């Protein structure tokens, strides 16, 4: 299937929208951003009524389950990406020097740094959860043996006892680990207290205090404040604090007393409602649970704890051979435990996601620092170049991206080319460095003779550099030039402009390697990634008319990118 085949259907989806003023367009961007955040978060809300539940195609994940957290993190990563695209990048640093942003942005950055610590704590917490999962697995393995002998039961009981005591052990106790008597230390050793956990931070570190510190100076802006950028920054801070708060509540973490009280969400904003809803629900659960051990609110652990207790009770009263009734009962419980263990396998990707979050925050902070750095030496820097800002529209997830690049000064240049990478949530979260999605870019050109067409193809084929281009085609009228491959579209555009002055980027889409898509597009969430991590292509092919290559066959994709040409002022 040659790439052009899809063009028609693809083009149909583009709704051309041209704004008259850049400013207007920006406002719209920001509003869109708020709306998207609200949408994403409300998807996480458990269905309020029974009818909803029936209507839902696939049952939504239980609140605070591992799967739910994975979705939450997905949503957060998306918000974060969009925030960066809409608010930070492609903007004159002078904006940030004005009040109140000069105060807000550094405050937000401070919060992100605090969030880093929480991410670390959560990572360690997940380690502990994995340890619990292993213990549960032992119990499951031995209880699944037939016939159940006393040996099996004892083995299971031992594992579960360790598990339960590890769950119920108090944070405080954990703290004084070093100082406690030798007996207590031994107790800990046998229970399986990974020392890495207690060495995670200084003893005085407290997750709840951290959350408190994050939210303490977070006061909702008053309604009258006009600047467009203020609200997104607040919004992002709130979402960040909320996500961290939820994770701390659910995953074992150091010192969490009084967590319930710390988060005050503003009621006047539309985007805050889903968060408030979630917060209320989690808060209720937290009140019930607060004093009991360190297990946290994670759905799986709670069930595990309960089941563990039941099975231990069964094991205590165990005599050989088992009564049929009891055996059936236990079998049921074991089956449930197996299910939980399977669900807990998801912890590994969750942990990876938390790490991804960590690295993302680090990266954003680094980028934001660049922008702020620029502020101080603005007088010497080159005029800022603005790159096309694209609106991506799609049925369910509307994604707004500013594809932008900035040149900081004559001497050193940094830009972040935002690439949209599709992450299929059903598959394992890929480490960021392994993906390099080919893109299909359609340039609107004006090439009416063979010579200029050839010139244009030559020009674009030179963009390759460390990237590669799979195919280049010009349609019959010479109005559209389609390039497929992994390459820098800004650079390609620049090269093409040398041939045809009127060149415009008409659309960008990600070409997915063909694979059966079972999930409906709704389930997929766009993610972005930096192109510099892209791996070297294995077979750089760049014929003008490429051989049939099923692997990178362009496929229409639900993300349509539309350009707003007025703000495209490359060179």
């Amino acid at each position, binding site marked *: 299937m040659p790439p052009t085949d899809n063009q028609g259907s693809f083009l149909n989806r583009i709704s051309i929208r041209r704004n008259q003023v850049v400013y207007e367009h920006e406002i719209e961007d920001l509003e869109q951003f708020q709306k998207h955040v609200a949408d994403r978060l409300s998807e996480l809300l458990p269905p309020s009524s029974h009818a909803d539940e029936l209507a839902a195609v696939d049952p939504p994940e239980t609140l605070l389950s591992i799967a739910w957290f994975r979705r939450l993190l997905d949503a957060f990563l998306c918000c974060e990406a969009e925030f960066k695209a809409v608010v930070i990048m492609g903007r004159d640093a002078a904006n940030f020097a004005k009040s109140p942003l000069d105060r807000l942005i550094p405050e937000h950055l401070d919060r992100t740094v605090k969030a880093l610590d929480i991410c670390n704590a959560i990572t360690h917490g997940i380690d502990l959860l994995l340890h619990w999962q292993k213990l549960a697995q032992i119990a499951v393995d031995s209880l699944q043996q037939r016939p159940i002998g006393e040996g099996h039961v*004892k083995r299971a009981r031992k594992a579960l006892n360790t598990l339960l005591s590890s769950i119920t052990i108090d944070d405080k106790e954990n703290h004084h680990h070093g100082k406690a008597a030798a007996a207590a230390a031994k107790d800990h*050793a046998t229970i399986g207290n990974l*020392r890495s956990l207690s060495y995670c931070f200084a003893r005085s570190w407290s997750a709840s205090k951290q959350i408190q510190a994050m939210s303490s100076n977070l006061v909702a802006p008053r309604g009258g404040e006009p600047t467009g950028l203020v609200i997104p920054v607040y919004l992002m801070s709130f979402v960040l604090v909320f996500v961290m708060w939820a994770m701390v509540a659910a995953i074992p973490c150091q010192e969490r007393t009084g967590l319930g009280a710390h988060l005050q969400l503003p009621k006047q904003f539309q985007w805050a409602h889903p968060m408030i809803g979630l917060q209320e629900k989690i808060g209720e659960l937290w009140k019930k649970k607060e004093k009991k051990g360190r297990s946290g609110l994670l759905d799986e652990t709670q069930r595990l704890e309960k089941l563990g207790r039941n099975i231990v009770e069964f094991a205590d009263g165990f005599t050989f051979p088992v009564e049929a009734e009891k055996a059936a009962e236990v079998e049921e419980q074991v089956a449930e435990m197996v299910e939980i263990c399977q669900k807990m396998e998801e912890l590994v990707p969750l942990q990876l996601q938390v790490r991804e979050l960590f690295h993302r925050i680090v990266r954003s902070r680094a980028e934001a620092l660049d922008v702020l750095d620029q502020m101080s*030496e603005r007088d010497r820097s080159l005029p800022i170049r603005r790159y096309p800002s694209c609106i991506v529209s799609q049925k369910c997830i509307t994604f707004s991206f500013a594809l932008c690049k900035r040149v900081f000064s004559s001497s050193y240049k940094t830009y972040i080319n935002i690439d949209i990478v599709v992450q299929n949530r059903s598959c394992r979260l890929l*480490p960021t460095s392994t993906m390099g999605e080919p893109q299909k870019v359609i340039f609107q050109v004006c090439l009416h003779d063979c010579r200029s067409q050839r010139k244009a193809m030559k020009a674009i084929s030179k963009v390759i550099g460390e990237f590669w281009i799979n195919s280049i085609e010009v349609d019959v009228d010479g109005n559209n030039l389609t390039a497929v491959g992994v390459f820098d579209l800004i650079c390609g555009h620049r090269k093409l402009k040398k041939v045809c002055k009127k060149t415009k980027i008409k659309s960008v889409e990600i070409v997915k390697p063909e694979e059966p898509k079972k999930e409906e597009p709704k389930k997929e969430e766009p993610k972005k990634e930096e192109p510099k991590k892209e791996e070297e292509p294995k077979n750089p092919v760049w014929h003008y008319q490429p051989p049939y290559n099923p692997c990178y066959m362009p496929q229409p994709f639900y993300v349509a990118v539309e350009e707003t040409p007025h703000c495209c002022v490359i060179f």
Partner: protein
Amino acid sequence: MEKHTGKSSSFIGRHRWRATLDSPRSTFSPKLYHKSTLQLPPDHDIPPDHDHNSYSIPDDVDYDQLLLQIDRFIDELSTAEDKTTLPDIPHHLDTFCKIIKSKTRKSTRSGSAPRNGEMITDQGTFLYESVKRLWKLKTILAPNTPLLDKITKLLHRAMLFMEEELRSLIIIEPRPPPEPKLKVMSLRYSSFNTDRSCSLSEPPTKDDDFPGFSEEKTMRINKIVTTMISVGYKNECSNIYSMGRGNALYDQLKKLDFEKLNAEDVQKLNWDWLEADVSRWIRIIKHCSCVLIPAERLLGEKIFSEHLYVFRGLFSNLIRSVVTSLLDYAAAVAIRKRSAERLFKFLDMHEALNGLREATNDSSDETKDEQSCNDLNAEISSVIDRIGEGVVNMFGDLENSIRNDVAKTPVPGGAVHPLTRYVLNYVTCACEYGDTLEPIFQQNAKLNQATSPEEMEKSPMAAQIMSVMSVLDDNLAVKSTLYKDPSLRYIFLMNNGRYILQKVKGSSEVKKVMGDDWCRRRSSEVRHYHKSYQRETWTRVLQCISQEGIQVKGKVDKKVLKERLKNLNAMLDEIGKTQSTWVVSEEQLLSELRASISGVVIPAYRSFVGRYKHHLEGGVKSIDKYIKYQPEDIETLIESLFEGNLTSMSRRRFYS
């Protein structure tokens, strides 16, 4: 049942402390006692044998014989067609069970007393062998026989025993240092003061014994592990391993004075303090990648020699948890505000992390867990990227700080500007890190499309250094305008140009980066400054002593001559006064300069004086009046130039 559960949990909550104290056991009812075991370490989990006195094990049992008999029994069983009717349970099976029971009991009763596995060494092989037999029996025996129950019970008991044994072997209780606080202090103190090479060589000697497992001990662990995994106790086994080794690794890190700082603290601490901390971190990373990780891998491969596939997962998890916490720190450092002077620490970090990445990657294919290896690699790479970006930005920062260095007052005497020294030293050091820097720039240059083909030819790093140099040149050019006296301006430019040239030539790395062309261009520039200076200062002098205009119609115009000589004297006075305060610090340049001046001036003067001396009337007195300087005097004058003796003059006069 449900209700009961709830109750018991709260009971545990209330009584846990008491239960762990172990004393009130007797006061508990049997039911409660079971509850209380819930909190106890597992060696209490083995039910106390009330009838242990009833066992009478014959002392003279030949173990080998016994095992043979059991084997025979197993064969019989497996060949028997009807599995429900057992052949008679032979007497020796009973003995066998009793022996195992007694052996395992001995150890459990010895409790927490340090028993370095001596129980297993003498009769160890017997236990391993018998466990194998038990396992066989368990798989062979028909279900729902009392014998099977007995066997599984026994197997579990043996496993518990082994687990304990393994625990005592693998988990090394950290010996608490006698004065932990003091030790930490002293270590930190030393790490502040000792130089880099010394502190680097320190840890390996200190921890030569890591991981501290003797060959024999490793073998024993290997035996236990192999047995446990073959009987399906893989999870217990791996739990103990990961816990023990994880803790051991953390102890090692602690020994190296690793103290995990919060990301928040890292942002707040001042750099001077953090710098020392980063040095320590680098040392730890190097130690990790050179010593700890390879040693750990070796140990693990020995222990799990029979079950390498189990080891893969365990090992990568183990390393991941250790490395992750080290990485967090680096990431936190990488997102601090950039400032140029931190470059070298960053480069060190970059190098160390590259080493670490290699160390985690460097394993034979069979012990590699692809997926988690990739994950870890991705993490390390991500941090390396952040640091790389930091490095690139630091060069930007350097350029900016050079640009922003606007001085109101010039350096006295046109000497080498401190900025020049700083930048050149910086660049020299940076070039010494060329191997590290080059890839960083290459990676980051992927984003920056080189704009001109000329830039494409050079490596990105060279381009960067060149641009730093050109920024420095621009800055110096601006600075030179602060000097009102053009001669001094040229001296200043010459001094700095020469300094830069010497520095670049002095280091082979920098020279390679800058290229010969650049050096040639620079030296011609310096020559140009030299010429310009000479023109500015000495042309006027030479004009005074030129023949032109003195002879009018074949006659010497004495008036003009006198005027000329007067001027000349004043000029030489002035030059002597001002230029002796100027500075040319570089010896060779100084002598070149002086030689070239005297080469031009003195012969001309000599001939001038020789020619017109007799035209001066009024005898010796008049001659002395007009010819103040003998050629020799001029030589001394020239020799006294550029000495930079400021003491005689107040400088301000020259610049105002």
